[in-house]
């Protein structure tokens, strides 16, 4: 109800006694009625509260989005890390196989370490009498230094196999 309306209502209810009251701009205050100032203050508080809650809510939304974005970036990073680790794994598998390649092992053993294949291998078989049986001289798989393996071909065999007839150091065999 607006003030003029209240004015008119007070005038009507009060009758003759209120005639002068209404015209003078005064009215009777109800017991639990709040003053306009209080009302205005309360309204302002309410509005401030609404603003505050909205602000907090909006900030919360922003924070949520920030966290979401951060996690999305992190997930992206982890995905690419997983992929690159898988690639590294494959590369390492290849490296292991390259190091173990028979042609490389033979070349390293012969050239760098000066190893030769043993002339004979002796087998000691438990329960069998007589001297150990000697096997065929193991074949000399040769890689000569000049014609390198891996240039697209097999190197030529370097002459006869191991000539030493040294019967020492046979490998025992279970």
């Amino acid at each position, binding site marked *: 109800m607006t003030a003029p309306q209240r004015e008119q209502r007070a005038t009507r209810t009060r009758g003759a006694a209120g005639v002068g009251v209404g015209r003078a701009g005064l009215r009777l205050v109800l017991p639990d009625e709040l003053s306009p100032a209080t009302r205005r203050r309360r309204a302002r508080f309410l509005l401030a509260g609404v603003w505050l809650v909205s602000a907090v809510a909006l900030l919360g939304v922003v924070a949520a989005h920030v966290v979401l974005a951060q996690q999305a970036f992190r997930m992206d990073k982890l995905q690419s890390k997983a992929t690159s680790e898988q690639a590294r794994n494959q590369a390492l598998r290849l490296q292991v196989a390259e190091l173990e390649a028979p042609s490389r092992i033979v070349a390293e053993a012969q050239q760098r370490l000066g190893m030769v294949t043993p002339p004979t291998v002796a087998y000691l078989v438990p329960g069998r009498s007589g001297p150990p049986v000697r*096997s065929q001289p193991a074949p000399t798989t040769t890689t000569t230094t000049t*014609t390198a393996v891996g240039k697209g071909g097999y190197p030529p065999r370097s002459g006869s196999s191991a000539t030493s007839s040294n019967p020492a150091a046979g490998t025992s065999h279970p």
Partner: protein
Amino acid sequence: MRRPATGRPRGGGARGGGRRRVGGHLPRRRLLALLTVLGCVFAVLVVRLVDVQALQAGRYAAYGLSERLHTVTLAPQRGAIVDRSGNVLAISVPMTTIYADPKLVTDPAGEARQLAPILGVDQTKLQGQLSQPSQFVYLAHTVTDQVAGQVKALRLPGIAYLDEPKRYRPDANLAGSILGTVGFDGHGLSGLEYQYDSKLAGHPGRLLVEEGIGGQPIPGTPQERQPSTPGLDLELTIDRSLQFEAEQALAGEVISAHAQGGTAVVMDSHTGDILALANVVAGSGSNPQVTPAAADLALTQVYEPGSVMKGVTLSAALQEEVVAPSTRFTVPYSTVLDGSVIHDAENHPTEYWSVPDILAYSSNVGTLQISQRLGPSRIYRYMRAFGLGSATGLGVPGESAGLVPAPSKWWGTSIATVPIGQGVAVTPMQILDVYNTIANGGVFVPPRLVKGWVDPSQKLTRAATASTHRVISSTTARRMTAMLEDVVKYGTGTAGAVTGYDVAGKTGTSQVPSPRGGYTSGAYMATFAGFLPAEDPQITAIVVLDRPQPVFFGGLVAAPVFSQIAAYAMRELKIPPPAGVNLAPDVPQVDASAAQGGEQPPGAAPVVAAPTPDAVQGTAPSPGTTVPASTAPGKP
């Protein structure tokens, strides 16, 4: 509307005086008109807004999405090919391919200057590529992550990247003839890479992502990631070390025998697992190197096998009991059949030979007499039962089933030629299977190259095993084994002996057919097929040399390679020399004194009984003596 108090009471309703010129109905009408116009404009806007925002929202949102949404294909990880112990023979490594969109390149010269040293390409060429009037040009294929990282750090406009894996072989030559090659699209083009491509290749994945202008993904937007399915690893039955040794031994002989190429196959006698499969071709012209053959010749190349076919003929004869091991024949050097002369490889006086003698000295005339007792239909039946004329089931692309003529197609002389391996076409693998059947106690076991498939969790799924069938009885197999031992002890195959072990084997030397009919003079295929240890066969192997010259006998050029490979196989597989046991006492010993026949070159010293095999039969050589490696004359 307020009006200044003029004294005139307004009271009930203003009846409005007459028109006023200032602030009267005229401005009010214009106002109304203006309001109406504005209202209409706003109405149109509202309608349009409702249309865009509510009615056709989906369509416009879709337009925007189509601009942002990118589908990225995730290349699948191709499975590796590994040997029976898991050692890698071929593997794919993910790499980056760098390309450019010249339309987005702002400074071709500057970018080329920066990129050239990193990529290692000519700067002017690169500049030309970056200035091309196209939207796509490859700059560098499959570069390492290091190089790609350096290029990415430059952040040059117009330069983009895509994943392209590269297939590597740790050892360039190892198993080269069976592995095959992989094309740019990641699919196999030949060999095993082609044959098993569907399981090796895997399935590509898909990544649907919203990207901004710079290509970076927009966080918070839905990302649909369908990961790629990696291919399975193919585990072969091949043994890496034995494969290497077989290739080296074969290559060495191809060079020293001046052959055009060769094949060597090693098989596990009981399971049919192929432990080594080597195919090589000699270098030509400017490149003298022996290289892996481009195709799997052991299965794709047919040839007339020659005397190794006698293994089939005599097995059939023993099994059908048309001869006994002790049956003797009067064998002259030559005989006439249907107007043609059939003769043995070397001139000899008429001999009274047992069946083992005929096999040990590889007598064609003796074999003819045995074949005549068998007859064409039984010979044909046993050839087919041993697997000749049929594909092996390995499914190798280009595999040949060979050609074995049915009896209805035989000539008058076929009874002499077919049983000694001329006039039939076989692959080396088929001959190997014949001798493996004998080694396996008479049971044919199909050859196997694939052990199984390994998934990313390292679980092995074994390949299905094919069914076996019996071709000859175990007694016949034992008798044949004893006779084949004699071939190596006293006959044409002494160079195939392995010290400390009893080897059973057969030589073959056959002419190469000429395309114009008949045979090409001076062109021979040299074969040796055998197995060891004879008492309990573990390994069967065959060696074929393509047109060795000038020495071309199987016993001289192929048998030593067999010996070398077999000796290595015994060490690699840790098979000790077994105690000597006479498997078939009913098989008479070969008449070593008549050892001048068979496939020996003229003028060679007669082969005498070697002291070596006694070592495993109880009488050991005195301590300190060195057992000689080989007793074959003329070959170191």
